[in-house]
């Protein structure tokens, strides 16, 4: 496609001095303020931040679901004024329609985004993405019959099935066990590489960010959060998660990011006026109860 003929656009998805707040104007406190971001085409960016900092709000802005109160969001040079299937969002809350089955949820998206597809093509397309997230056995189940992790995978499959140019993934793998998570991380990376997509990944897992992203951008603590200086990840791709932990560059980067985040947290608390209470550096000596108590039978009264 065009991406083969032209070099990737340098600032494909941008935020320019963006601010956003909620509530009535006179008592509004901005959740995000002075946010600048420029994502290259085909770049993989990870945004990392604390809970409540404004990560989901950032995704809404990028998607066009929320309009900024100041500044501008653009994609490929055009201002983003409303959401659309070019920027596929995977919602943190999964947002599955409870009355539709797994296949039905994905089919709704596929039919809408690819109106030209025949019935058989739609079916084939839906099944491919269900298979990708390993949910074929559950394809006729309703969301309430699925586990949290399974729902998250359905949501991911729905977003991927739209084949958007930009993937906005809001903590897409947070509810999964380590094994499934690893498999899906690889899956996302593969799609990103093969189909030349631009990805903004929201996460609170530093390992995941380092494994996947080209750049890791911390979001400072809210209110009035903003994007901090990015940490470029220069590790060679493909990154092998088994050997990565032994890599000194990886270890260095991880320490750097972690300590940055810890510092952010401390500063934010200090800014709020809370003093930092240092815990005494002691460990409990003995935690075995005396023999008298041990001899008693504990009744569960609950």
């Amino acid at each position, binding site marked *: 496609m065009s991406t083969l003929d032209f070099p990737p656009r340098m600032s494909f998805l941008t935020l320019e001095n963006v601010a956003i707040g909620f509530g009535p104007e006179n008592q509004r406190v901005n959740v995000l303020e002075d946010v600048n971001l420029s994502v290259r085409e085909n770049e993989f960016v990870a945004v990392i931040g604390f809970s409540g900092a404004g990560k989901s709000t950032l995704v809404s802005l990028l*998607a066009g*679901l929320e309009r900024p109160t100041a500044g501008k969001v653009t994609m490929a040079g055009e201002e983003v004024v*409303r*959401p*659309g*299937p070019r*920027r*596929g*969002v995977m*919602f943190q*809350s999964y*947002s599955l*329609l*409870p*009355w*539709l089955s797994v296949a039905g949820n994905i089919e*709704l*998206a596929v039919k*809408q*985004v690819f109106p030209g597809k025949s019935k058989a093509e739609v079916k084939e397309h839906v099944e491919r993405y269900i298979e990708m997230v390993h949910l074929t056995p559950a394809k006729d189940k*309703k969301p*309430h019959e699925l586990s949290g992790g399974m729902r998250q995978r359905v949501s991911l499959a729905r977003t991927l099935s*739209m084949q958007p140019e930009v993937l906005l993934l809001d903590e897409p793998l947070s509810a999964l066990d380590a094994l499934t998570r690893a498999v899906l991380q690889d899956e996302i990376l593969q799609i990103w590489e093969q189909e030349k997509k631009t990805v903004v990944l929201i996460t609170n897992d530093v390992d995941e960010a380092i494994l996947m992203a080209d750049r890791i951008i911390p979001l400072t603590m809210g209110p009035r959060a903003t994007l901090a200086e990015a940490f470029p990840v220069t590790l060679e791709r493909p990154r092998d998660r088994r050997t990565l932990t032994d890599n000194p560059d990886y270890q260095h980067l991880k320490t750097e990011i972690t300590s940055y985040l810890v510092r952010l947290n401390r500063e934010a608390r200090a800014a709020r006026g809370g003093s930092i209470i240092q815990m005494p550096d002691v460990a409990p000596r003995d935690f075995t109860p005396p023999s008298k108590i041990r001899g008693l039978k504990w009744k569960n009264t609950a």
Partner: protein
Amino acid sequence: MEFKYKILKGIDISGLNFLSPVVRLATGEEPAKQLREIGRFIVVPIIAFLAFLWLWSVVAPKHKTKAGEVPTPAVVWDATGGIWRFHEYETQKDQAYQLTGGTRLDTLGKAKARMAELDALEARAKEQLAAAEASSKEKFDARVAPSKKAYDDAREASKDARRTRTEALKAEAAQLAGATPEQRETFLNHLRDADAAAEAEKKSLDGLKAAYADAQTVTFPETKDARRTVTVLAEERQFLVKYLDMLGDNSREAKVADAKAKAEEARSAFLNAGPDEDLYKLGSTVLKRQELLATTAASQYAKPWTLPKQIVRSLLCVFSGFLLASFIAIPIGILCGLSPTFMAATTPFVALFKPVSPLVWLPIIMIIVGGFMPDPENHWLIVLLGKVPFLGNYKIDPMFLSSAITVALCSLWATLVNTALGVGSVDKDHMNVARVLRLGFWSRLFKIVIPTALPLIFAGLRISLGVGWMVLVAAEILSTSEGIGKFVNDMYTNGSSQSFAQMFVVVFIVGFIGMALDRIMVVFQRLVSFETAGSTL
């Protein structure tokens, strides 16, 4: 096993949860626990119901009314049989009237045989009744005699005592001519004493009279049973007389044959008439007779309304009203849920009209509907509805329409409010999905909004149907439109003890149908709710 879970699921969806321990017990799952559950959810309700029946049968006869004693469960059960027999007989007559040829003659033969049988049966039943009455009369007399004697004796004694007292006082009065005022005062006191004595006697007499009356109230089950048998047989005889008539000389076939013969006769008279006869008159006769033949051939037995038929009509009416209400309430509810402005515009109407009683709506609606149909028989709507296959048999008239509209007006509010609520509660996250996908207005409506609202819409429909059923019976009583309500009204006007019992039958029928309608709606409600929780409703 698979099968068992299917049954359990079905039970759960239909809300008949009390059956699930039975199924589980049958498959040997935790028998002790299931028996306990059966005890609680099946045996206890049955015991409670039996206790209720017992209490009813004890208390009811204690209260006397214009229409006799309040009927006991046994009497009500009897009345149910009476209602059913009436229905059966009328249906048979209806069918008999239309029979032709061999079938008719066969049926006629059978009916005649039954009539012969009936003669013997009736004679025997009457004998038994006479015997029972004779034996019970003896018992009755034996039971009543002591209290009667006590009462009669006491009455005689009291009469005598009064006479003696009066004479004594009169004699005293005759000697008062020259008495002092003190002596006269004493006489007055004697008069007072006499009055008091009379009063006391009257009181004790009343007591004896009550005891006598009480002794008379005794009933003898064997006489009662014998009398019932006689009544039932008499009813059957009455029916058979009519039935034989319908199968014989008064059958449609016989009448048609007769009319045909007459038409032929007139025709040949006309064709063969001499020149000096009045051909105009003869010709008109031919036409008249032919017309008569046609109406006879198309005639039907004028079947009276029986309760089962009235029930079906009531159901048709309530469903018509319910459908009308749904067609109005769901779209308006959706608009309300979608647009706050529309909601604001609608709120006052809902608040104002929702509490209005059906008894206010009905007369207004009847007048308005009547205004549209000055000549109801020939109004296009009535004619059209009369041609609808099943509906046509149930006499669709302006009263039916008014009742249905009243039902709709009273029941639509629940659906409207619930629909608005359901539509208004669409998840913002789901809307965001729709926005990202750029779903159009109609797609959003049918793929996101309505599915979200469906459980609440059905909850509203369920309430509406329940309200509609209650409103309908009231509306029928007021409008005397054929149906269950009309039946109650007729029974009330009738005022016999039999019809009093039949009103009790209606209570159970109305209750049962209402319950069935509710259960049906529960099933629908559960089928559309996407997170069917296994709770009892």
